[in-house]
């Protein structure tokens, strides 16, 4: 669990350690098309629900498509980079192109109630767990 710290660097370090601990986890491995596909995805649990986060810097919201069916979410789009034609290039590290990635969660979700937020080049998908998957409290009689 990511907890609150008073010192921002301490908080960031704690977050980095908690992410490192789950690096290479196999939780969704069979369903993501594997690590190395664009965009890289982080998946979190919050209460009963899930949050999937992706970094897509430079991708315009209008060039981003999301589709969901059953437990599978498809993220596709393109990243365009326009250069000034008359300019001389000193350094060129950014890359452009298209992407298409599917993510299948190993658990039932409610595809109709997924909420997406895109801000500062980061896409967050708020994915509710399917009602039938939620744990039930069993009354002892």
């Amino acid at each position, binding site marked *: *669990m*990511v*907890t609150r710290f008073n010192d921002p*660097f*301490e908080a*960031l*370090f704690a*977050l*980095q350690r908690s*992410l490192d*601990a*789950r*690096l*290479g*986890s196999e*939780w*969704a*491995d069979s369903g993501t098309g594997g*690590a*190395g596909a*664009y*965009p*890289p*995805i*982080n*998946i*979190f*649990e*919050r209460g009963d629900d899930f949050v999937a986060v992706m*970094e*897509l*810097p*430079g*991708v315009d*919201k209008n060039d981003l498509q999301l589709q969901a069916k059953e437990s599978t979410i498809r993220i596709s789009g*393109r*990243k365009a*980079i326009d*250069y*000034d034609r*008359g*300019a*001389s*290039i*000193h*350094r*060129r*590290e*950014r*890359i*452009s*192109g*298209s*992407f298409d990635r599917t993510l299948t969660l190993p658990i039932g979700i409610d595809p109709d109630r997924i909420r997406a937020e*895109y*801000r*500062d*080049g*980061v896409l*967050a998908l708020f994915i509710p767990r399917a009602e039938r998957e939620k744990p039930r409290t069993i009354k002892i009689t």
Partner: protein
Amino acid sequence: MATQPELQVQQKREVGTKQESTIPARRYLPVTDIFETDQALTVILEMPGVSRDSITVKTENDVLTIEGRVDYGTYEGLQPLYIEYNVGDYLRSFQISREIDQSKISAELKDGVMTLVLPKAEKAKPRKIPVN
């Protein structure tokens, strides 16, 4: 119809440290493009997750330094399940020449990408020399 190249994941590069900080939180180098025209030098940096208020751009002794801080508060209460990348603040410095008019540097942020335009000083702009 031209086919678009498929995007590849770029591994984040960590900032090489000159001085060590007391808490070893990782910082990353923003992926950067730099190009130059007669009028200006343009620096484009990718800093996903960094908002407008969390960026510092400064020039000191002809060194341009860009720092972007991520809002780790958005991760509060989230339990990591499956992780492919780590997050951290961004830091990068460039030596710039005196040709730049440092008082006229402008910055714009869109979709996690910052564009810095560094206009050249009047005297540094190339001039066409008329041949009589």
